[in-house]
């Protein structure tokens, strides 16, 4: 059943190729059918491979398909090889499953856009690149996918490139990612120099047999993690993700919430042997993740743009995933990645549905009271919010709890405390969003109110499906208090996760931790209710009392401004100086100078070309005489 798993990335690739070559001539209906069908077919193959994998015994893992020898230069070997193991299988299911729903949603959301075909071409290309990323059996293939998704992210953020801010946001995302990628690439080089192979299985074995020292392992792990902070929008490279909301909303859901931004988490989980071996690198991952989780959550508190709140929330949630990976609970991190893919893409798509209903309005201060107008969007949005807030029995609760419990069990109480604090903030800003959007009095602009309507079925059906999974997806990884060996997700991942020493908490402690995380979630929601429903004056009073703090949060701690002053402006100035003095004078001078010299000599020589046949003959004769004289004397 796993024989054809290599088809998973190549069905979207084929679809992309067809759309690139013939897309402009194909009718719109066919384009949407093909784009969605390709992802669906890929999803079916992923499912079949997944069930095949369940029946495969652990000794046969991972299943590797070597498609062809790619680079063989001296001792450097890199093949285009794909692998199927529990980790990549989960990722392919998430990418193609959520991806398919978002494709379907897009057919409704983008229906009137002029770049319809271009949009679906990019989306298919993205899916292909993402699948290559998660299925590559060595670091080189993974890097190809890594760059591929970066490119698609750039193309899709800047999809409405005639809008200046969108084009700039695309560039920002691309450039910030380059910084991370440079470090990632350095890490790959170190691995090739010291281990001599990029194959994951070889690397894991080499580390196990002590091929590299712990210090070197830490260096490599940190370099790889810097790459992950770029792609997964963590401190200090998170700044591109909020701006990335300039892209179409389904793109934000697919690329900037469910799949691409979690690539860093996947990569850390994939290299878990290295991170565990290094030890200290893991702690760095956990601390950075925890700080990001809180820092991004505080920025989400005061934003009024509905998509930006979700963007900061994504950064914060990915921080949680890194907490999980950092404390050695890679399975918990991956579990949160998997549940997050459902509820965060649900939230984005629902936000897109709200925007669609309000003719593109993004400002929550101009919404309110929408729940009676949007009978399907409202409940699905609410389910997403409850799931992310960590209320029991929904998926987000199980995964967030798994991470926080592991953080506590690992003894990193600081990380755990930050995680708990972040959970209060998460519940608060999500319900602030819900209350501002769907409750209270209507603050709509008149033109938005005229066209107020629920979205078409192509958009609402994916919402319902995602809402369903946001509720049930967590039941594959139940906590230990429910019963032993109920964590199917963790057990499925066991063959790929190197087990560090495990600390078992007593059942009482486990219950206590669960109670605490439920309590903080409820507290967050209650505060939001008091602030925005019961007594809406409180936020204004708070702003009036602490204008400095509000301004700091509202302006996102001025991080963009600080980066601009520290790096961007000096770079721009430096580039301008180089342009003025070196580019214009030296390079252009050399190029223009050689052209001028050629021109000059050409002019001089052209004096000999009189056009009179006798002149030519004379020169010919003189030449012959000179030659003769030279030969004779």
């Amino acid at each position: 059943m796993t024989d054809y798993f290599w088809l998973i990335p190549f069905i979207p690739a084929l679809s992309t190729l067809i759309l690139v070559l013939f897309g402009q001539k194909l009718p719109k209906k066919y384009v949407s059918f093909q784009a969605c069908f390709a992802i669906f077919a890929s999803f079916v193959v992923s499912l079949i491979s997944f069930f095949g994998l369940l029946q495969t015994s652990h000794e046969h893992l991972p299943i590797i398909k070597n498609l062809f020898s790619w680079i063989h230069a001296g001792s450097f070997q890199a093949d285009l090889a794909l692998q199927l193991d529990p980790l990549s299988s989960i990722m392919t299911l998430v990418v193609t499953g959520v991806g398919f729903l978002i494709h379907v949603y897009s057919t409704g959301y983008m229906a009137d856009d002029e770049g319809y075909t271009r949009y679906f071409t990019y989306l298919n290309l993205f899916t292909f690149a993402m699948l290559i990323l998660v299925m590559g059996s060595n670091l080189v293939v993974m890097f190809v996918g890594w760059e591929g998704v970066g490119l698609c992210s750039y193309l899709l953020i800047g999809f409405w490139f005639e809008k200046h801010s969108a084009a700039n946001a695309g560039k920002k995302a691309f450039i910030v990612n380059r910084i991370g990628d440079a470090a990632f690439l350095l890490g790959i080089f170190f691995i090739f120099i010291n281990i001599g192979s990029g194959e994951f299985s070889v690397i894991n074995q080499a580390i196990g047999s002590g091929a590299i020292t712990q210090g070197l392992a830490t260096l490599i792990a940190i370099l790889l993690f810097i790459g992950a902070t770029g792609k997964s929008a963590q401190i200090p490279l998170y700044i591109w993700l909020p701006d990335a909301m300039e892209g179409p909303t389904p793109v934000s859901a697919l690329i900037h919430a469910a799949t691409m931004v979690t690539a860093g988490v996947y990569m850390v989980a994939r290299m878990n042997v290295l991170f565990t071996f290094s030890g200290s690198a893991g702690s760095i991952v956990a601390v950075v993740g925890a700080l990001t989780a809180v820092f991004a959550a505080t920025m989400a508190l005061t934003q009024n743009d509905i998509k930006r709140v979700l963007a900061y929330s994504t950064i914060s949630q990915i921080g949680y995933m890194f907490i999980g990976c950092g404390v050695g609970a890679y399975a918990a991190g991956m579990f949160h990645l998997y549940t997050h893919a459902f509820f965060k893409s649900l939230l984005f798509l629902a936000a897109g549905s709200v925007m669609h209903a309000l003719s593109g309005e993004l400002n929550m201060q101009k919404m309110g009271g929408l729940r009676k107008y949007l009978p399907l969007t409202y409940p699905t949005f609410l389910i997403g919010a409850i799931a992310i807030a960590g209320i029991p029995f929904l998926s987000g609760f199980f995964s967030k709890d798994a991470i926080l419990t592991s953080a506590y069990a690992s003894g990193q109480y600081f990380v755990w405390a930050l995680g708990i604090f972040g959970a209060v903030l998460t519940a608060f800003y999500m319900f602030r969003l819900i209350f501002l959007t769907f409750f209270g009095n209507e603050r709509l602009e008149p033109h938005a109110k005229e066209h107020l309507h629920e979205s078409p079925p192509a958009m609402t059906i994916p919402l319902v499906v995602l809402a369903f999974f946001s509720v049930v997806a967590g039941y594959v990884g139940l906590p230990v208090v429910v019963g032993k060996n109920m964590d199917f997700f963790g057990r499925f991942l066991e063959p790929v996760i190197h087990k560090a020493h495990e600390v078992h908490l007593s059942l009482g402690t486990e219950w206590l931790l669960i109670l605490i995380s439920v309590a903080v979630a409820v507290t967050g929601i209650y505060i939001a209710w008091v602030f925005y429903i019961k007594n809406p004056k409180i936020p204004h009073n708070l702003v009036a009392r602490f204008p400095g703090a509000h301004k700091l949060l509202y302006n996102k701690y001025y991080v963009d401004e600080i980066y601009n002053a520290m790096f961007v402006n000096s770079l721009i100035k430096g580039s301008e100086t180089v342009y003025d003095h070196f580019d214009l004078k030296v390079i252009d001078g050399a190029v223009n100078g050689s052209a001028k010299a050629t021109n000059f000599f050409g002019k001089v020589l052209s004096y000999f070309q009189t056009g009179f046949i006798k002149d030519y003959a004379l020169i010919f004769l003189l030449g012959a005489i000179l030659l003769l004289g030279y030969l004779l004397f």
Partner: protein
Amino acid sequence: MIPLTYFLILSAILFVLGAIAFFIKKDLITQFMSVEIMFNAANLAFLTFAKSTGSLDGQIIVFFVITVAAAEAAVGLAIILLLYRQKKTIKTEDIQSMKG
């Protein structure tokens, strides 16, 4: 027997005559004829040397030269004819279209 130098002197005289004619004559046909004279001057020199060294090489080359000259005459005359049709003249000082 006539000494070899006589032949060579005759060849040289013919060549110089051809060259001078080429430069002082104004119409293409005559210039063309002077080129033929130079060819034949060269042929005479080749034959003279062939006779003196006793090898056949010089004679063979003469055959080649005659062949090439025949081909050249055919092409050259055709060009002159076409030139006349286009420009209504074959005077070289009137034809200057290749000026750089």
